[in-house]
């Protein structure tokens, strides 16, 4: 696969690993947080923690938008799916997230019409083909995905498709990063910034991390060699006394982002005052909702959602995992009371969640022991 295989090359990985080994300050830990499920997945799937010296530690932040949807919102989605004539469409990963009474998959087993789609446009097509049904698209994702939902809404309006609506759960990347950096005892030395979010928003939204909080940031692509490259860039910044936002993903990310995407989002969506993040609590101006002009396609305007606030399970320590304070295997219920088949919390829910990735690829042991 072009643009993929080259960045998975074992030979190249060894070279970059060697460079990391040469740049590391022996005995000086460097804790690097990534905030994108894609990065979490790559790190675990390719065993990258084993390819870097022990001084370099990868932390996994709240970059999995499926994992951070609160149980209350999941319950709302299930409620929607159970309404007469409703056909709920969403991405595959979202179907396994547990609310209070199980997941969307469980709701489907009870008879709700829940369907998996690959693109929001597929959900719009379902609406065209099923004029007697009310198709609701459960929209999730960071700024990477919000533009796709935006374009779909504009298309729905253009074509006057009245039986289509969006239950919008899009979240934004910068506020949770600030929330984490504001926490006491935070021990993060640098950030690997999400490559595909940056395709849309560019690299400027992360500048506050370098300027106000003094941490280097590297916008990074998703193959294993890319992540190793980002580690090199971070180590070089530290060595040279620099602290800035750099772009490793030059083949795709432009500093100004994608203007069409930003315009589409602005035309259809606005920031909510606050939003509940599973494991992290309420964060201000961190999520999107549809603009009033799009009320006709807004599930929150069309339906009277229960909108209950549900507390996370007690044994769950996802909040600490999501901010990199603990690793998955530090949590008492990891692998026992909380597994991918029966997830208790956010981080175990999606295959990109830190705990799910650790469980699947690292077994129930710490990778160092494996």
């Amino acid at each position, binding site marked *: 696969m072009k643009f993929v295989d080259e960045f998975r090359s074992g030979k190249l990985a060894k070279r970059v690993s060697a460079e990391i080994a040469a740049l590391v300050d022996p005995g000086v830990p460097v804790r690097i947080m990534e905030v994108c499920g894609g990065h979490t997945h790559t790190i675990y799937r390719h*065993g990258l923690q084993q390819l870097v010296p022990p001084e370099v530690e990868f932390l996994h932040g709240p970059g999995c938008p499926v994992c951070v949807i609160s149980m209350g919102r999941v319950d709302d989605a299930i409620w929607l799916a159970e309404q007469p004539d409703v056909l709920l469409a969403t991405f*595959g*990963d979202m179907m396994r997230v547990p609310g209070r009474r199980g997941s969307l998959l469980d709701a489907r087993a009870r008879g709700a019409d829940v369907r998996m789609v690959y693109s929001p446009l*597929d959900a719009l097509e379902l609406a065209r083909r099923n004029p007697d049904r009310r198709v609701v698209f459960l929209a999730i*994702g960071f700024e990477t995905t919000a533009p796709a939902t935006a374009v779909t809404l504009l298309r729905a309006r253009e074509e006057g498709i009245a039986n289509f609506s969006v239950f919008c759960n899009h979240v934004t990347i910068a506020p949770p990063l600030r929330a984490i950096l504001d926490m006491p005892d935070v021990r993060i030395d640098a950030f690997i910034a999400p490559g595909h979010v940056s395709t849309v928003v560019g690299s400027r939204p992360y500048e506050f991390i370098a300027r106000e909080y003094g941490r280097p940031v590297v916008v990074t692509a998703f193959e294993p060699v890319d992540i190793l490259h980002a580690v090199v860039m971070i180590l070089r910044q530290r060595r040279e006394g620099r602290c800035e936002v750099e772009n490793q993903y030059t083949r795709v990310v432009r500093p100004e982002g994608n203007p069409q995407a930003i315009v589409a989002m602005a035309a259809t969506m606005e920031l909510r005052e606050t939003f509940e993040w599973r494991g992290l609590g309420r964060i201000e101006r961190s999520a999107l909702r549809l603009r009033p002009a799009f009320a006709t396609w807004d599930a929150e305007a069309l339906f009277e959602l229960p909108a209950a606030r549900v507390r996370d399970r007690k044994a769950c320590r996802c909040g600490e995992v999501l901010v990199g304070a603990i690793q998955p295997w530090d949590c008492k219920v990891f692998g026992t009371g909380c597994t*991918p088949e029966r997830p208790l919390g956010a981080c175990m829910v999606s295959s990109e969640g830190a705990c799910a990735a650790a469980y699947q690829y*690292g077994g129930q042991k710490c990778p160092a022991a*494996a």
Partner: protein
Amino acid sequence: MSGGGLITLAHGAGGKATRNLVEKLFLPELGNPLLEPLGDSALFDVNGSRLAFTTDSYVVRPIFFPGGSIGDLAVNGTVNDLAVAGARPLALSAGFVVEEGYPVDDLRRVAADLARAAERAGVSVAAGDTKVVEHGKGDGLYITSAGVGVVPRGVELGPHLVRPGDRVLVSGTLGDHGMAVLLARGDLDLEADLHSDTAPLHGLTAALLDVGGVRWMRDPTRGGLATALNELARDAGLAVELEEAALPVRQEVAGACEILGIDPLYVANEGKLIAVVSPESAPAALAALRADPLGADAAIVGAVRAEPSGLVLLGTALGGSRIVDMLVGDPLPRIC
């Protein structure tokens, strides 16, 4: 399993949930020495001959797909369960549950496919049954098949025979069937030159048994290679170490999996086998597989180790190592 739950699709996916259902619901009710090994076939003695007996149900959707149909699966799937138990397949049964309103021509087509597959596999369809259910209660057509075969004297297979140092072989490319069927459903609007690999494997298994040194065989259907090897590792109390670079995967399968965020290790195969053989037999076993058109892409993909017991590990192309777990849930596309 606690009472009052509902059966979900995960229970049928061939992974952990399926295993749980079998071990915690069916075995407690049905358990007996013939069933308990949970092998692909049950083996028992009749007047000095060892018979293999197996059953399978076919609920594939869509019914016709590139590379075959439910008729082909109904023969090959059952034949293969017999073959990997070391048996020479003799006869099958075919029970049809047809939905009211299903086109007669389609049924004829399925029957023709089934007949042709049986001929190719050298088995007779010795018994059959047909039931019709009301419209809306049957989703077109389901087929159940049972198979019987004879295990030659001296053929002994099982996880208890597997030793550290044994080699793991696969007879060809992984994930072809599952991806072909997934794309054929049309929901995902992906187009590719993918076709099911459905095929009878008794020729390959006979060739392997001729070489000798075969410890265990399995056809990795639902749950893929990863699930089958996890079951072996657990049953044998050993570890299996795979090499990512050695796994044969077709370009289109890799591409489709990449797009959908699915791992080919978990995707169903309907014309491939896994064989664990002694280290001395491995080269000859590989040659025997490759000599057959169905085994042209055969490869040695890993080895058995003593530790860590019960686990399957994968050496990544990057020189790292990770665990390959059993399938959880249904392979839903990863978006992020």
